[in-house]
């Protein structure tokens, strides 16, 4: 059964709403409209307007309200309509969502899932294509998860909603309409991917691409293209940025001795910097070359007609691979 990522996310929400009466979806346009990306399509009809609530247009208010709901034992799933429109809620995320368990000495956890459609490649006008993962990944107390496949969209969202900790769930907009042969029924509960484990999407021997979310497909494409250059590239899909799967990542890098990190967000102080730094700390003597990064430039996200230059491309990835000091 061919399923899009949007449909898989929708199924995950539906199944969570069915199985746990505490799950509540809230956000802008999530009810009647079913969300601007239709991820919440049909939920208000099936579960009622209260379980899938159209809120006033105020992101801090949405998240603040969700915090109060979580305090009372509910399990809110919040939709931020677009990446950049989550910024008004930043204080609530950093000062409360991330800290509540800690500040109450473990007495009050906040099982909130914050869904954020993120990233570019969809021709969005300004403020509609930000990659904001670094802001969240740098904030202790949050889990930061981003699926890249249809199956993971379902499984990781289930895991996020089931988590007793807050999860920032970053949905790659450009993959929303990607499809795969997948049916939620296949995913037995036991098989729901745990948060915090990376996945080797492609084994390889020459060098390792480390990536996540929207950039996985381009890395797989690059790996395919690299064949003709004589490189056999491994591709690791991180899936969870926090917690970080040091074990899988380091094993994959040690196996090849060379690595390139790929993401859309601006490179400077991006998550790629963390990955490069920690891989280097942990695998230094296995490295034949520095861990390189292929990322968005250090610029505000460009207008639609220029985004192709900004986004990591097969070309840029292969260029980086070529710079991995093969002659040494």
């Amino acid at each position, binding site marked *: 059964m061919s399923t899009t990522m949007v449909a898989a996310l929708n199924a995950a929400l539906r199944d969570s709403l069915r199985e746990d009466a505490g799950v509540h979806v809230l956000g802008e346009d999530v009810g009647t409209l079913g969300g601007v990306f239709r991820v919440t399509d049909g939920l208000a009809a099936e579960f009622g307007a209260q379980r899938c609530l159209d809120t006033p247009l105020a992101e801090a208010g949405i998240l603040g309200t969700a915090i109060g709901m979580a305090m009372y034992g509910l399990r809110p799933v919040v939709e931020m309509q677009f990446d950049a429109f989550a910024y008004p809620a930043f204080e609530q995320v950093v000062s409360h969502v991330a800290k509540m368990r800690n500040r109450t000495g473990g007495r009050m956890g906040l099982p909130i899932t914050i869904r954020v459609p993120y990233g570019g490649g969809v021709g969005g006008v300004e403020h509609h294509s930000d990659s904001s993962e670094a802001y969240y990944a740098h904030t202790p107390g949050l889990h930061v998860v981003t699926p890249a496949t249809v199956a993971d969209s379902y499984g990781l969202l289930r895991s996020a909603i089931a988590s007793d900790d807050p999860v920032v769930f970053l949905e790659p907009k450009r993959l929303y309409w990607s499809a795969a042969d997948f049916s939620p029924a296949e995913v037995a509960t036991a098989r729901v*991917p745990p948060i915090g484990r990376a996945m080797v999407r492609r084994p390889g021997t020459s060098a390792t691409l480390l990536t996540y979310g929207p950039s996985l497909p381009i890395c797989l494409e690059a790996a395919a293209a690299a064949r003709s250059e004589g490189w056999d590239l491994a591709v690791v899909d991180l899936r969870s940025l926090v917690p970080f799967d040091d074990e899988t990542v380091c094993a994959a890098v040690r196996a090849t001795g060379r690595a390139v990190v790929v993401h859309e967000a601006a490179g400077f102080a991006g998550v790629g910097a963390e990955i490069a730094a920690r891989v280097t700390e942990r695998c230094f003597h296995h490295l034949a070359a520095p861990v390189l990064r292929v990322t968005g430039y250090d610029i505000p996200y460009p207008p639609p007609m220029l985004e192709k230059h*900004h986004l990591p491309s097969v070309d840029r990835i292969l260029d980086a691979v070529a710079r991995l000091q093969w002659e040494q």
Partner: protein
Amino acid sequence: MTVLDDSTAPGLVGPPHSHGPRRDPAPLLPDPEPVRILGTPAAKTFDAGLQRDLYRRLVLGRRFNQQATTLTRQGRLAVYPASTGQEACQITAAMVLRGVDWLFPSYRDTLAVVARGVRPLDALTLMRGHAHSGYDPYEHRIAPLSTPLATQAPHAVGLAHAARLRAAMDPASAEDLVALALVGDGGTSEGDFHEALNFAGVLGAPVVFLVQNNGYAISVPLASQSAAPSLAHKAVGYGIAGRLVDGNDALAMHSVLSAAVEYARSGRGPVLVEAVTYRLDAHTNADDATRYRSAAEVDAWRARDPLTLLERHLRAAGLLDDAGVAAAAQAAEDLADEIRAQFDDPPDPDPDSLFAHVYAQPTSQLREQAAELAARLDADADAAFPADTAFPADTAFPADADEDEAR
């Protein structure tokens, strides 16, 4: 209608022990009914030339909305949030401002931007997608269209405040300007809206906030947005005058907005105007409005189309005849031709522009990155350039391997 007069301006009342200025709320509160002029005796006293001008501009505005929507269908515009049905708000917002004033539009207010004199192509640049903004904010005294909702409202306050500061420092170059901020009904829920109104009230800045209450924030109806008697009732909470007006009544809009602007200009403080109107089209061309509102509702509002209301009135008042209608229609077609012509040249944005304006001077990091991109583009120059590096939407993914096997 409750006029804006000196009784609305600050004055100290209240118990001796209270903190700070406690003023009489009455003049700040809006009337329960929106101000209407069409169909009332007040319409008779309205300048005839102005009425005709309003009509012409509304017709052009409607045509602008239609043409821009057509461009999206042709793929020549990426997206367009039409203000169809809200033309009386958009046009009067531009008309009541003087050259010295500033406009702070939201993403739906392209028409107001054009009505203030920006070339359609430049006003639509953001929606076309080759640059974030196409006009010079200083040339036109219009801030770039603001997409993050209500964020432009405090900018309007700051600019208006700055103008008064400079006027005080240097009276010779004083600009008695007013900043007009446009916000939607949904936008009033944002914290930035609140903070802007509060700053405006405290600073007494010459700002007018025009809320176009078109009944929806995308799919969310006003009833889910606010429980207030009216959005104009928010004003009193900031010590600001609040006024409610029929946003589909062009004469009422012009009259209330110009009163508000001149009230603010005269130093008597900011004003919040709620215009009750309706978005006849979907949220944008990408939206399907039938998912959240009935045809009957839209029809009822179509019957209150600001153009229809004004045309009917002008004809009845003998200010407009078939020839006048035809002339306006012709001007509208000319505008549409002009817009189409402006869109004839395909845009060809320069990749170098990515790095040019991040800072006044590019950092060494950006120079490196610009050089890297330039080198790649040079290298690609001979080779066929990949049309689009975006990932094809329907590509299947490798099925997830077994968790444990994969590790």
